[in-house]
């Protein structure tokens, strides 16, 4: 670790090379289904970073975040599928889709401004479900979403005539579409990380942190709490909408099932597990919680090999381990696996403070 910390340039270069060859490495070692998983990891990182703006920075507990993912996905599908016969290019749809999701961020934010904590969580949870149920039922009287059947034949991303589908060959290297999506998602994820970092360390980021710490004091210090909270919702929604659009183009098919409450909770768990408000932690959380469930599928095969039959169904085991992991984390690493220095301090007294307290104790005895 010290090696990398002392040589930031070299480690950055190594990281860049690793990220660049990762899909080829993965498909060579593990197969293409794992590259597909990598793509999903990136999408979830995008989502987790977006939700982190709302929950981690501004401290607004949002349990319906997946709704913005859904809105982004459906927006993409409406404008790039045979459903309405529209086939607009992605560079028009994605920006519009993020704006569309941001608008809904405002719509959700506005009525929840007076709510805090538990109450806010319940309302946002309701919002998430409302969007999903709308998508499920908007096939009549006008067929907008094709209901539970979902929408398919969504156009893949394409630059001019170059579509992200099938396999392309560059310089005799075969590059399947999932690899191309990997690079596209990687670009967006890196952009999102940059945006999140810059927001955190800005006038807006400080205002979010102030609201998280003490809303009354923030207002009395001159922060327009209404606007700043709405901005947090809208910014979070932007990331969700972007990820949704990418998801729709990547998957080619979307249905309301993909956007259930469980997904919202998973994204929240990524943030909590990784370290709320800390981008590296959030990324770690997203990576772990996307990859581990897939890896656990192999437990079924292992059981069959060793025990002759599958005793514990891998999907049950997944939830079991997940629960245990969360309980252990709350006990031993309450600030997350990789918390920011600030959060860590919130939850553990440092030596300096302990000494300070000890000192005042002596004062009292004197």
């Amino acid at each position: 670790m010290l090696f990398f910390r002392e040589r930031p340039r070299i480690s950055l270069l190594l990281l860049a090379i690793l990220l660049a060859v990762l899909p080829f490495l993965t498909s060579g070692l593990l197969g293409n289904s794992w590259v597909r998983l990598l793509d999903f990891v990136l999408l979830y990182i995008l989502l987790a970073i977006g939700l982190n703006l709302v929950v981690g920075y501004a401290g607004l507990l949002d349990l319906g975040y997946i709704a913005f993912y859904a809105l982004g996905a459906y927006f993409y599908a409406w404008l790039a599928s045979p459903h309405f016969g529209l086939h607009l290019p992605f560079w028009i749809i994605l920006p519009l889709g993020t704006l569309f999701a941001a608008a809904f961020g405002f719509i959700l934010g506005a009525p929840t401004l007076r709510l805090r904590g538990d109450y806010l969580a319940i309302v946002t949870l309701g919002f998430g479900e409302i969007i999903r149920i709308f998508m499920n039922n908007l096939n009549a009287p006008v067929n907008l979403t094709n209901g539970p059947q979902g929408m398919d034949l969504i156009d893949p991303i394409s630059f001019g005539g170059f579509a992200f589908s099938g396999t392309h060959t560059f310089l005799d290297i075969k590059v399947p579409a999932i690899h191309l999506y990997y690079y596209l998602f990687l670009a967006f994820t890196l952009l999102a990380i940059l945006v999140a970092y810059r927001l955190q360390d800005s006038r807006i980021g400080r205002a979010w942190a102030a609201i998280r710490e003490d809303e009354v004091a923030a207002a009395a210090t001159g922060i327009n709490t209404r606007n700043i909270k709405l901005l947090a919702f809208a910014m979070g929604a932007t990331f969700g909408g972007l990820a949704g659009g990418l998801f729709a183009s990547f998957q080619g098919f979307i249905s309301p099932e993909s956007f259930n409450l469980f997904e919202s909770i998973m994204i929240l768990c990524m943030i909590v597990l990784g370290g709320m408000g800390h981008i590296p932690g959030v990324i770690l959380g997203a990576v772990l919680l996307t990859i581990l469930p897939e890896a656990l599928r192999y437990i079924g095969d292992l059981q069959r090999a060793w025990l002759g039959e599958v005793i514990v169904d891998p999907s049950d085991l997944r939830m079991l381990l997940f629960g245990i992991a969360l309980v252990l984390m709350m006990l031993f690493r309450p600030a997350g696996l990789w918390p920011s220095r600030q959060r860590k301090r919130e939850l553990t007294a440092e030596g300096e403070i302990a000494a300070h307290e000890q000192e005042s104790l002596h004062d009292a005895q004197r």
Partner: protein
Amino acid sequence: MHNAEVRAQENTLLVVDQVGKQFGGLSALNNVSLSVRAGEIYGLIGPNGAGKTTLFNCMTGLYTVSSGAIHLNDVAVHNHKPHEVVARGFARTFQNIRLFANMTVLENVMVGRHIRSQAGVLGAVLRNALTRAEEKNIRERALYLLSRVGLDGKAQHLAGHLSYGLQRRLEIARALATDPSILALDEPVAGMNPSERRDMGELFLRLREEFRLTILLIEHDVKLVMCVCDKLAVLDYGCKISEGTPQVVQRDPAVIAAYLGGGK
């Protein structure tokens, strides 16, 4: 220093006109009127539960008033949002210190500059020359204010880790960062020892001179109030029972009765 004639010629900065505040059936403030001149240190005293903090909350937009009006520089500020009141130049501190405990000392003060700066999302993300210059100004101003209240060298400490007295000072620095013309301090020396209280009293006088402040002060410490205040108002059960210079108020029978319970 107390050049009464000069101050008397200056304009009245804050006018509280017949302000009433009811919580359900309870009347916390009853037709309270005050007027504070620019440059004054105006003390607000009274027994516990007299309505001093309630009046502060009405002035700073945390409460709406039930009746009456509050004008700052001839502009109505009652029933406005807290941030609008701050924008008009009215800053405050809290009786129970309300810092952003998990942010650094410097960040706390930088938050105070929010209302006097512009950068939005686009500026934050692009970090253009304008935003960078603004951030630099915010930081420099915050560091300067920290030095003025005696917090040099503590900029990178966590606010919550400061000692009690320094937290009080930090809260004042944060309030000053909003460029106030009037600063309302709610029991700023509560829980301090006599020498700390004296230091704080000197700080108030110094800040008034340097930042051309008007200071509203809620305080129980009679010695401090007598020392630094130009004028006092005494509240009891939501009513103003006395007003005047410290010497006058000190001898007012109504005040003595309220404090010693003789009259009731």
